[in-house]
């Protein structure tokens, strides 16, 4: 008898479908309490850092160059106090086969799928990861289906996402395009069940272990080129995989003094599941609509336990405005002669401001660039915004920006200023959500220690928060 395919029935089979589709039983990492074995999950890939480097290099992934952004550095120094203005570097991840760092995440996942005998791979993504999985599937001879949230209810597509669909199809993948809504996961599960393909989730341990090489390379290349570790690494933050993997890689390289900073575009007020807000966004990722919920509640992705747990690693979380990112993207092309973006340029806008806080003999690096093309480029992004009634003008982004209403381009580069998010508040929010899920604020010492690990805090901090919450 055919299985029922309505929403509730398919979602009810989530666990069985996932077990089949990942060849990984997540139950083995559960302790029966709040704690789960995160390092055990990460170790379940069976790959060491060296093996991941080898797997990635087989398909030309990784070992990307570091670019020194001399003119942007000189520009930042004009706004810094004397002796300040760290050299701004960019890890040129656009040099990966699929045009972004996501190739690192896809390489191990697809290699694993092939090794385990799956005929195809699937991923639910509207971003560069789809292209990365499609590219890897092409190289490794597997079939590939990418499921995208792409259109609003009038059938108007986000140009950035349409470009990703084109790229996936160019690599031979099938692209399933959907209108706005979290039921993308339902469609994804349903096709996964029908095809028996591998779930190449962004949030699987393969997806995160693949990013560790990025953090490792950053430390090694900086040491070789500049004789020291960078003072700061800035990661554009959405699902948290970049932050998590990069920080883990830096640790494996022993770069303990490098500060890990997450950066997102401030899209406060725009609901991510809203049909009408969908095309009022002028960027599709690297924004707070993903960055904040995934930091404070990582386990709401397409796997039972996410391997991306950014709050464990970030030491600072800053926001910039859409207009800052558009401006810096144009600056990168005009002053450095390289067209990249948009996603990596969120970190670049932040780094431009953060560099001014650091002494001139230090280095600040953005962990990624990405390819640019029709649809995902500053001009079509701004043109699309204008067509959707978004006001575009020069001004002070931090005073005048209103997501979904306007894009305020900084009236000069001095107006590109990061705003720090309240990490203490985010840690509290994490603890609250974890306890709610668990069903109690009365937890034992071991779970308190676990929450301290999860929030990069201390057992004392967790206890204090629990007292406040009770």
């Amino acid at each position: 008898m055919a299985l029922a395919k309505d929403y509730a029935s398919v979602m009810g089979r989530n666990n069985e479908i996932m077990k089949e589709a990942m060849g990984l039983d997540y139950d083995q990492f559960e302790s029966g309490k709040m704690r789960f074995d995160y390092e055990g999950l990460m170790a379940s890939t069976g790959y060491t850092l060296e093996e991941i480097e080898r797997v990635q290099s087989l398909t030309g992934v990784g070992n990307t160059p570091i670019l020194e952004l001399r003119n942007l550095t000189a520009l930042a120094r004009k706004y810094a106090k004397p002796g300040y203005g760290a050299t701004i570097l960019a890890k040129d991840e656009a040099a990966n086969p699929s045009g972004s760092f996501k190739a690192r995440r896809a390489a191990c996942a697809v290699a694993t799928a092939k090794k385990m005998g799956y005929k195809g791979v699937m991923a639910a993504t509207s971003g560069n990861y789809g292209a990365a999985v499609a590219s890897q599937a092409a190289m490794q001879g597997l079939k590939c289906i990418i499921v995208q949230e792409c259109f609003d209810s009038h059938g108007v597509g986000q140009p950035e996402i349409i470009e990703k669909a084109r790229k996936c199809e160019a690599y031979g993948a099938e692209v399933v395009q959907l209108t706005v809504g979290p039921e993308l996961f339902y469609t994804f599960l349903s096709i996964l069940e029908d095809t028996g393909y591998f779930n190449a989730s962004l949030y699987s341990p393969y997806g995160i272990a693949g990013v560790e090489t990025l953090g490792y390379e950053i430390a090694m290349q900086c040491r070789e080129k500049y004789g020291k570790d960078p003072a700061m690494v800035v990661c554009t933050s959405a699902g948290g995989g970049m932050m998590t993997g990069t920080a883990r890689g830096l640790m494996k390289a022993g770069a303990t003094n490098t500060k890990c900073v997450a950066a997102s575009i401030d899209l406060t007020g725009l609901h991510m599941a809203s049909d009408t807000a969908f095309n009022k966004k002028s960027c599709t990722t690297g924004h707070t609509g993903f960055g904040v919920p995934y930091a404070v509640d990582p386990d709401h992705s397409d796997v039972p336990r996410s391997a991306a747990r950014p709050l464990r690693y970030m030491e600072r979380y800053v926001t910039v405005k859409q207009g800052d990112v558009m401006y810096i993207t144009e600056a990168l092309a005009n002053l450095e002669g390289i067209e990249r973006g948009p996603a990596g340029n969120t970190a670049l806008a932040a780094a431009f401001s953060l560099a001014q806080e650091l002494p001139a003999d230090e280095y600040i690096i953005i962990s990624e660039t990405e390819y640019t093309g029709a649809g995902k480029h500053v001009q079509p992004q701004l043109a699309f915004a204008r067509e959707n009634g978004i006001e575009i003008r020069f001004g002070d982004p931090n005073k005048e920006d209103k997501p979904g209403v306007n894009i305020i381009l900084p009236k000069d580069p001095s107006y590109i200023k990061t705003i720090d998010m309240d990490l203490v508040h985010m840690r509290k929010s994490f603890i609250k959500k974890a306890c709610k899920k668990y069903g109690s604020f009365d937890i034992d010492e071991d779970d308190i220690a676990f929450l301290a690990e999860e929030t990069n805090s201390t057992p004392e901090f967790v206890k204090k928060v629990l007292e406040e919450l009770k």
Partner: protein
Amino acid sequence: MAKKGDWVRIHRVVLPAEGRNPNLPADTAKVPLEMWVKGSLCADAEIGDEVEVETATNRIEHGTLVEVNPYYTHSYGKFVPELIQIDRQLREILFGGEE
């Protein structure tokens, strides 16, 4: 008239508004979840017909035929004059007065 084997795009309502996730924002809850997929047409048909296609991964999908020989029209967008202003400003700040 589209021929069997033509590369086409189809459309289907995956979930009607009333069959969707109960926790949606009001605007999204009012509309159905729709899907578009491409594939080779399984039999001759007209635009608007209910058809089956074989996708790039050899899945059979069904839906309404909406486009034959589908192609992309996304672009580099219309001219945005503010970008010229940014370019001029950056060059003036960084290199101004040196010529």
